[in-house]
Structures are given as C-alpha cells and as structure tokens.
C-alpha cells in the first residue's frame, strides 16, 4: 500500500509516494502452553533485536495480523527486505518465559488473500516446494 509523504523540493512541498512491500507469514507455534498475543509478539521482537540490534529490527516493519493461541497459529506481517531477518529471528526463538517453543513458517505471501489460498491448498507442501 503506497504511503504519501511531504518532501520539500525547491521551496515547495511535493508529494512522494513510498511503496511498501509487505510479506505475510503464516506461522505454526509449537509449545505446551499458550501465550497472550502481546507476550508472543514481544518475544519475536526480542529475538529480532538480539540477532540484528535495534537498528536492524527497525527495518522489519513487523506486526501481528492474526493470532490464534489455541490453534498455535499466527500471521505476521513484515517488510520484504527484512524477510530473511524475520525468518532467522523466528527460527532462533526457542523459549517464551520458562516454556520451550518452536515457531515454523507454514507459508509466505505478498497478500493476505494469497496466503489464505496457499494455506487452504496445504501449507506444509507449499512451504517446502515454494519458499522465497
């Protein structure tokens, strides 16, 4: 979705459109315990900050779009440029509090609609044959 910014150029303000290029990641969260939305997201941020620092994490543009703790399912949005960083951060997430946790990426897509389509077709197979 393009965002408009005002930029001063030659004494007048011109509109500049900056195109954001999001990626949506469907996640499977494996743990004995369920976690609150905020706790889960905080831990993903913490993992990202540990690996890439605050500067790196600031480029991720990460947000939790959907979260179903009972099903162990979540949809995370991030910038395309930061996709590898976010995937690495998710892979290094091994515990939340005292509980062991593993987060696996089921599918990745550029739109939520395409992500749901991928998931309905069987995310397991797709995530292995497709990827990015």
């Amino acid at each position: 979705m393009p965002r408009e910014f005002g930029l001063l150029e030659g004494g007048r303000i011109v509109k500049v459109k900056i195109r954001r290029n999001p990626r949506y990641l469907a996640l499977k969260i494996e743990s004995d315990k369920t976690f609150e939305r905020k706790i889960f997201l905080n831990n993903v941020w913490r993992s990202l900050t540990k690996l890439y620092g605050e500067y790196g994490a600031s480029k991720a543009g990460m947000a939790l779009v959907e979260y179903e703790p009972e099903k162990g399912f979540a949809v995370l949005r991030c910038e395309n440029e930061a996709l590898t960083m976010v995937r690495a951060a998710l892979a290094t997430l091994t515990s939340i509090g005292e509980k062991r946790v593993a987060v696996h990426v089921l599918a990745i897509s550029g739109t939520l609609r395409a992500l749901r389509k991928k998931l309905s077709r069987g995310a397991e197979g797709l995530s292995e044959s497709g990827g990015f």
Partner: protein
Amino acid sequence: MRRKFADLNLKPSVRDFGSAEALFEKACELGYSLVAASFPPDVNRERVAEFKRLCSGLGMDFAARVDLAPNSRRDLLRQLGRLRRRFEIVGVVCVSKAVARQAAKDRRVDLLVFPEFDPRKRFFDPQEAELASNALASLEVCMSSLLLAEGARRARLLSFLRREVAVASKFCVPVVVSSGASEPWLLRKPRELAVLATLFDMDFSEALNAVSAVPLAIVRRNREKLSSRFVAPGIRLVRRGKDC
C-alpha cells in the same frame, strides 16, 4: 523437481524408543526425506535396524552415523579401522590439532565437527581446509549450538562460523548444515536452517545445498562404497560369471 532435504545429525536417545519416534516423526513432518541418527560406537545392530524400520514406516530414508571423539591421531586411526564399515556416516569431533589434521586427510572421514567455543580449539584453518578438500571431508555446522547460545556466546560462535565457512568456500570444502537436535523442539524446517546459515554469510542457495544436495551426496557415495559391488571410485562390479 522438488528438492529433497536431509538432516545428518539427529541425536535420539538410543534407550528411549518413544522419544526417538517423536523426533523422527517431527523430522518427517518438517519435510526431511533423509535423516541420520548418531549412535555410540558400541551400539547394538538390532537397535539401528529398529530405527531404520521406524523411519521407513514414516516414509523417510535413514542412515546410521557415528561420531568419533579420539584423543590422539593413533586412536582415530584405530577407531576408523574398526568402525568405518559399520556406519554409513562417520563424523570426527576434532578436539586437538593432531586429530583435526588426521581427520581432514583421511578419506574414511565424512564430517569434521568443531564443537568448542574456545577460538584456540577451532582448528578449521586454510591448512585444514586444503587437506579436507583433497580427501572429500565436509565441514559440519550444527545449528542446535547456535539456537541454544545467547548474547556474546552466540556472537562469538557466529564469528567463528563466518570465518570457517569463508575458508571452506575458498578451498571448495563442502559445508553440511544439520540440526543436532536431541528433542523435537530443536528441529527446524530445512529452509529455516538455510535462513539461519545466512547469519554467517552463507549464500541462501549455497545454504539450501548444505541441507539437501551435499548431505544426500555424502550418503549416496558412502552407500556405494559400502556395497559389495564397489571396487574403486568410479568402478563397480556389474556382473559376475564365466562369460565376463
């Protein structure tokens, strides 16, 4: 064609069949088509066969692996002579420079493992890499240590791995990325392992090969060597008889 993935370093409990089963089931669910389990050298052959049956029931290929941790060069040679033909994969945990050098030049060794966090005990330098490239040994990177380490310890490990992978790449030494998981929560999907390998500056396509083409090639080569038809590299017995 769909890429096949292999994890050459699962560490199931040999005594607890239930937990081993859970580990293999998880590996199968995550998309691995070949797994190798590390056994102690004196393992019962029946136990290896049980694991093989279990994996074949799950639709996965299985390879038996042994990790040797010799104290000296002589000890390594003795263990290799005794165990090479019993296991499909042989890894050597290099705890001293003499052992590392001998392991790198011995054609019976498949994987070189450097477990120490101490920089003085990581012996994968250009000399080691040159020996390994002539003898077809590969450098193994075990991701469980990366997942379990935190803070400065992880930063140090990443720094060692970055240097070692760069040296391996310069001397054309294959790199194998494996999980080293003893429990299901330490297992990651093959593509996630490849993404983690980009942390120490491996190219993503190269990292994908490190979890697919390279380990699969090692197992294929060793199975060929262990078969009764093998004569020498590139030569194998096709037919026996008077008319040959």
